[in-house]
């Protein structure tokens, strides 16, 4: 029986925990299997959950988020017969760990291009949740994409706050969106968990476009959400569960090539994305896959070449 450990945001964070849950649910629906799960409530529970599930014989144990790196490197060696899968971690060692990293900056690059192309004002916005490196990573890729289309584009980037409530404050998300709109933004990319709900809502109310994140959020406001930056955590989780205890270990990079990230195109936003836009983005995608185009990652030297945080 596999187990799934959600990060502190909780499994319904409208973001990557939820994506993981969706992946697991899909697996359960398809196979009729069951899985254990826990939503962490405190830092101390990270190690606890790993050990308890391992002791209870769960295999594989899938965990979410970079904060699991430390506890996992401490726990994994104690349970050599258990396979662990960790999302958003790529730098730890351990024979029984499958580490999955997503190239969020590449996905963000694509939606940044779409944003700049859809923008009439030449100003696009980015709303992040709490100011942490991961969110800067998203914003940085986005800005690069927008600038690739229109070197003069203005990218307005804001963070919601510095407390955990920054992930769950749609009201502030709304206000940030309004503030960005008044600065000219007519496409806004929200990478802010529950706060993003407010951003998307306000964008729809004010008649501008928004971009969702992690899972496909196009359906939230059909015709008003330009696209969503997909981070296929659901696929990663689904595949890990499907592989069961035979899951391959090692570092797995989920980039554009692996369809680990991408942009969402469906009925809800078909009218918003012209063939020309699509062609341009797909070309860029291919270039990135082919290595002809390199999107700078914020992590490389803790700064973004085109955006100041």
């Amino acid at each position, binding site marked *: 029986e596999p187990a799934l450990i959600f990060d502190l945001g*909780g499994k319904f964070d409208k973001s990557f925990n*939820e994506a993981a849950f969706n992946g697991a649910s899909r697996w359960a629906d398809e196979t009729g299997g069951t899985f254990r799960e826990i939503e962490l409530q405190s830092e101390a529970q990270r190690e606890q959950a790993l050990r308890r599930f391992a002791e209870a014989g769960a295999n594989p144990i899938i965990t979410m988020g970079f904060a699991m790196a430390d506890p996992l490197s401490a726990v994994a060696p104690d349970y050599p017969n258990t396979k662990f899968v960790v999302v958003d971690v790529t730098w730890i060692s351990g024979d029984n760990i499958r580490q999955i990293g997503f190239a969020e900056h590449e996905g963000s690059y694509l939606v940044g291009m779409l944003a700049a192309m859809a923008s009439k004002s030449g100003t696009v916005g980015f709303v992040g949740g709490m100011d942490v490196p991961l969110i800067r990573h998203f914003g940085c890729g986005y800005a690069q994409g927008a600038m690739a289309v229109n070197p003069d584009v203005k990218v307005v980037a804001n*963070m919601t706050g510095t407390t955990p409530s920054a992930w*769950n404050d*749609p009201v502030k998300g709304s206000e940030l969106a309004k503030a960005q709109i*008044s600065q000219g933004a007519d496409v806004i990319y929200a990478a802010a968990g529950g706060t993003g709900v*407010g951003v998307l809502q306000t964008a729809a109310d004010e008649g501008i476009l928004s971009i969702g994140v992690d899972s496909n959020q196009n359906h939230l406001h059909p015709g008003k959400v330009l696209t969503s930056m997909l981070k296929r955590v659901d696929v990663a989780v689904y595949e890990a569960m499907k592989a069961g205890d035979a899951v391959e270990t090692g570092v797995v990079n989920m980039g554009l090539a692996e369809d680990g990230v991408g942009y969402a195109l469906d009925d809800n936003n078909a009218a918003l994305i012209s063939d020309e836009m699509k062609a341009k983005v797909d070309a860029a995608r291919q270039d990135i896959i082919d290595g002809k185009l390199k999107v700078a990652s914020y992590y490389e030297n803790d700064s973004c070449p085109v955006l100041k*945080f």
Partner: protein
Amino acid sequence: MDYMTILQILDSTVRLAVPLLLACLAGLYSERAGIFDIGLEGKMLAAAFFSGAVAAVSGSAWLGLLAGMGASLVLSALHGLASITFRGNQLISGVAVNFLAAGMTVVVAQDWFKQGGRTPSLSGAARFEPITLPGAEALRDVPILGPLYAELISGHTSLVYIAFACVPLTWWALYRTRFGLRLRAVGENPAAVDTAGVSVVGLRYAAVAICGVLCGIAGAYLATALQAGFVKDMTAGRGYIALAALIFAKWRPWYALLATLLFGLLQAIALRYQNIDLGAITIPVQVMDALPYILTVVILAGFVGKAIPPRAGGEPYVKER
């Protein structure tokens, strides 16, 4: 900074201030009657959820508002039971209300809607829509005043106007009516009210109930006017800020308006101007984020001086030891 930007910041100020104002006035009634209430946060949260839930199910924002007020009233009644009838510790009771709301909203939301502690998205009549005041569009082109009217004064939801109307209404009720006289008296010296032949318990329950109603409106405003549905923990500490504003306002209605507008303004500015680039150094977003709080402390230390709470506040009225 041009005029439109100023107007937009003020507009944002209004939206951010309204939930604070409602909660602050709610606290004002309760605390003026001698019942301290740190459960404003919880009541708002419960109201936000139930208004969102009922609006989603019924499709009517007004029914949602009623449900929100009802939920908030239930928590008020609980607080009243603990702190008035059973003369318990008002702070503990308030803390319990906050925990209860934080937990219950998500548990119930998950049980009802299975959307991860959220309500379904509201649209149409399930949401309070902005009202365009008469002549707003026609007057928009009048210099200075036109945009002021059209942008800042017009175009809010009815709850905003209700909230602002509550300020003079509260002032009037407090200082011009029998009820207000008794309410203020019971917060200062309940024995005086008791020996004057008026029920202390009745007055305090009334005050706590009004507090519930106002928190209910505040919560409904968050979930059905500003937003289109409930998200867990969506009050995000506004109840505590409202409490601070109440002390800041020295428990007076007009000052409450000023205090909450000030908080709203500081937040609006902080949200708009993140990462101010001063050439040599960039002011980090964290500084701007903390700015409203830093300024509050500065203002408090520099100008406001001592705030004296209602004298009987926080103490249960005990006749017989």
